[in-house]
């Protein structure tokens, strides 16, 4: 089983350890059951983000996270890809049958990954994003070429026509000038937990009857609501 985490910021940094813990305990005793986690992020950890992000060193996020987790989970092969994804390099990271966790901070990257996933035959894509106190998780799954639910872009025009930019297209100077918005640790945690739960339902427990395709939450109101997102007829 291969899991790819794209984005190791406020959400990804809290998702990656419990995901590894989950994978480490899957298929225990089966030596042929390879478990691989691929970490993809071109950004660096910065001290200013320590209130929300978990890291040990101010280094590239993918490299630093691998260094942190490898000793904890020797049964998992952890690969670090210190790059921002774009339409040209995505094939290097995402393979058929992968479970892809998308924890980025822009809709432009969500669209790129969603469009790529639609061209695959078998893939599970779980995308999370938040504002200050609320957020959502979207799920897209394709099995043997059949879409089980709608892509990230179908019901969300803000992803289909993103106004922001993929960081792979920005210079270092432009990246350093990106405005930072206020985020809350508990909100990042909640998104990470919801993404892991979506993975558990789809790939581990396989509770088909309970599956949802999108889930919203708002911590200010202590509320959560899930919905089905069937594929839209072409």
């Amino acid at each position, binding site marked *: 089983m291969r899991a790819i985490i794209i*984005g190791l*910021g*406020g*959400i*990804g940094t809290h998702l990656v350890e419990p995901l590894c813990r989950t994978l480490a305990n899957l298929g225990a005793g089966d030596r042929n059951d390879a478990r691989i986690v691929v970490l993809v992020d071109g950004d660096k950890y910065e001290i200013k983000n320590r209130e929300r992000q978990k890291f040990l060193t101010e280094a590239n996020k993918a490299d630093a996270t691998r260094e942190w987790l490898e000793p904890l989970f020797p049964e998992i092969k952890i690969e670090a890809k210190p790059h921002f994804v774009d339409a040209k390099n995505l094939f290097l990271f995402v393979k058929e049958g992968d479970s892809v966790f998308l*924890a*980025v*901070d*822009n*809709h432009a990257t*969500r669209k790129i990954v969603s469009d790529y996933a639609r061209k695959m035959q078998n893939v599970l894509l779980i*995308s*999370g*994003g*938040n*504002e200050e106190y*609320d*957020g*959502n998780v*979207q799920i897209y799954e394709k099995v043997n070429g059949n879409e089980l639910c709608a892509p*990230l872009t179908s*019901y*969300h*025009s*803000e*992803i289909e026509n993103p106004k*922001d930019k993929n960081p792979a297209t920005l210079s270092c100077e432009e990246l350093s000038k990106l405005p930072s*918005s206020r*985020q809350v640790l508990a909100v*990042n945690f909640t*998104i990470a937990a919801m993404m892991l739960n979506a993975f558990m339902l789809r790939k581990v427990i396989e509770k088909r009857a309970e599956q949802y395709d999108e889930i*919203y*939450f*708002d911590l200010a*109101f202590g*509320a*959560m*609501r899930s*919905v*089905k997102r*069937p594929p*839209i007829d072409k």
Partner: protein
Amino acid sequence: MTQIGFVGGIDQRKVKLTSGVNTVDLDFNGVQYTVAEVGDKMKEVLNLQGNEIALVNGRQVNPLEYVLNGTENVEFVREAGQKG
């Protein structure tokens, strides 16, 4: 003048409105409203931003043109969270 109000009693003719985590059941008392009119009246209750895609019974509609008959499920699709 008939006003939109919350459902009570045994009246089953109601519209279910949702957006994000918010859900409201409404009785239109036979009055026909467009989706846009309902969205405007319920803007604060549903915490609408004004740019949501409107779905009626799961299908996208033009909110200015679609007139509700009083028994549909209407979702104003809240934008996905951007940050991570």
